[in-house]
């Protein structure tokens, strides 16, 4: 390939690169850096006040009421991550395996499993909110119809069930994605390896655990990392289904809702606080970025070993 020269070609390459770079610089890099900077100031509405150093961070992490809200929300995100890991990625792997077997109808099932994924989170949120309604929702009506009426409860109104109701809705929405990513990974396993395995053992279980699972490690890396990022940035689904305050009494509060509420205000609360909001955003971002990198590196290392 030709190399860079000052005239003509150099200009041409620059002309190609500058517009896209400008976009990314102005609308991604600059805002993210600003978000970091804003956290160090005091804010009056949208008017920037004076430099306050680490005060906002301290407030959000250590002073009440923020400290317990932060811990509460964070704890919920952790729960959501592990729950979805099982319900989304776990089931996704199983479904991918089932599809991989190539039984009749696989193509139809593949289309069906991915259909919920293309829907907007808003649609999924409202749909399930209607389904979970204690008096008129399909879930409770069905339970009563098949004689399990005692199980019918106000799913979104109780702390014990609200977060899980959201998790189930999310799993329904998104399980198609890890399914197809794992499937693609499985389809890339070279035929020779599979044939060799078949010579060695007849056990499907051995084949799956010892061969398939390690070989789809690249897919697993992607799916795990994306789930991690998604679980900690969760916002639209809880916003639509339970509202900005993480009703009932904060049991569905997650970092995304908490951040938005702090920065932009809420119906019954006092003033908004961009300083605290920005500090929260920075902390969330650092946490997710650092852990996602660690996660990816370790998972990648696992890939190479094979």
């Amino acid at each position, binding site marked *: 390939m030709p190399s860079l020269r000052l005239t003509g*070609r150099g200009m041409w390459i620059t002309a190609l690169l500058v517009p896209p770079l400008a976009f990314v610089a102005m609308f991604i890099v600059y*805002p993210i850096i600003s978000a970091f900077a804003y956290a160090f100031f005091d804010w009056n509405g949208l008017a920037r006040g004076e430099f306050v150093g680490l005060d906002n961070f301290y407030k959000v992490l250590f002073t009440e009421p923020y400290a317990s809200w932060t811990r509460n929300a964070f704890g919920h995100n952790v729960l959501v991550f592990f729950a979805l890991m099982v319900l989304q990625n776990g089931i996704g792997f199983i479904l991918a395996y089932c599809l991989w077997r190539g039984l009749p109808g696989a193509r139809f*099932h593949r289309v069906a499993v*991915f259909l919920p994924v*293309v829907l907007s989170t808003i649609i999924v949120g409202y749909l399930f909110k209607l389904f979970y309604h204690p008096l008129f929702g399909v879930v409770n009506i069905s339970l009563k119809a098949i004689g399990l009426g005692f199980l019918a409860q106000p799913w979104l109104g109780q702390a014990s069930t609200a977060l899980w109701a959201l998790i189930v809705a999310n799993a329904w929405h998104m399980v198609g*994605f890890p399914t197809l990513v794992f499937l693609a990974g499985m389809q890339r396993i070279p035929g020779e390896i599979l044939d060799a395995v078949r010579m060695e053992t007849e056990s499907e279980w051995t084949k799956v655990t010892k061969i398939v699972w390690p070989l789809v490690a690249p897919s697993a890396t992607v799916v795990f990392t994306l789930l991690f990022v998604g679980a900690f940035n969760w916002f639209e689904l809880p916003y639509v289904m339970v509202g900005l305050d993480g009703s009932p009494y904060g049991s569905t509060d997650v970092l995304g809702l908490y951040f938005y509420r702090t920065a932009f205000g809420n119906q019954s609360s006092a003033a908004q606080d961009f300083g605290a909001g920005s500090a929260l955003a920075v902390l969330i971002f650092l946490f997710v970025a650092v852990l996602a990198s660690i996660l990816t590196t370790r998972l990648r290392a696992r890939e190479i070993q094979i």
Partner: protein
Amino acid sequence: MTTATATKAASYDRPGLLSTLGRDGLIQVILWANTFIMLAPIVIMVFSAFKTNAQIFASPFSVPDFTHVGNLTKIWTQTNFLRYLLNSVIVTGSSMALILVLGTMAAYAIGRYEFKGSGFILMFFLAGLTLPLKLAIIPLFILMRDFGILNNQLSLILVYVAMGLPTTVFILTGFIRTLPNELEDAARMDGASELRIMWSVMLPLVRPAMVIAAIQNVVPIWNDFFFPLVFIQNDNLKTLPQGLTSFMGEYTTDWGVLFAGLTLSAAPIILIYIILSRQFINGMTAGAVK
């Protein structure tokens, strides 16, 4: 059908027909159960759109009288549904166009030319992949205010383009790198300019990757709710997901109309998906599978 399954299975494992059918049977059960779970809510949603409140509460699973289109017409004529749909089309379309143009430019530069810093620039774009732009909403909000485009669809388009470039550049660069050199060299020897080469020779070859990049971006942009929530207050400028919250709020007690609203909002993307399912699946998982 049994014979075909048996033959296929025989090429996989030694064990006899019975345990194979057992395992395959279990797999079919799992798949059908899953498909049912995936589709049932959507089917209930569509059915309920044709029912009255009383019918929904009494028999939620029954097949409705599909001529009863009152709920759908209510959404169609009495709310701003068409306007929201149009806004979504405009915003998504413009964003897609810009993403493809800019993304191709960058990917072409990085992928076809070797120069110092090309690796770094690629990294720069890829870093954008992991950054959740939502958390920078405050500075973005202030930036849009300073540009005077708050409450203007341009603010959405600019943000979506910036968000869509990293994955697009990633996908296209990978693809462009694999294109053969011969055509390019030949054209260069004929004295064609770089622009000519890119436009007439290389771009037509990149089209399949562009389709993938397009699909990868279309769905998140079409479905996005967060940025319109913050940037757009004017009802006439709202996109479909955001507008959906308006009529969900307006008709809270009329469940038939609510389901009709959800059905109409989901219809465009469901229809397109069913027609183009293979491209969709390829497109949306492309970035994830290397």
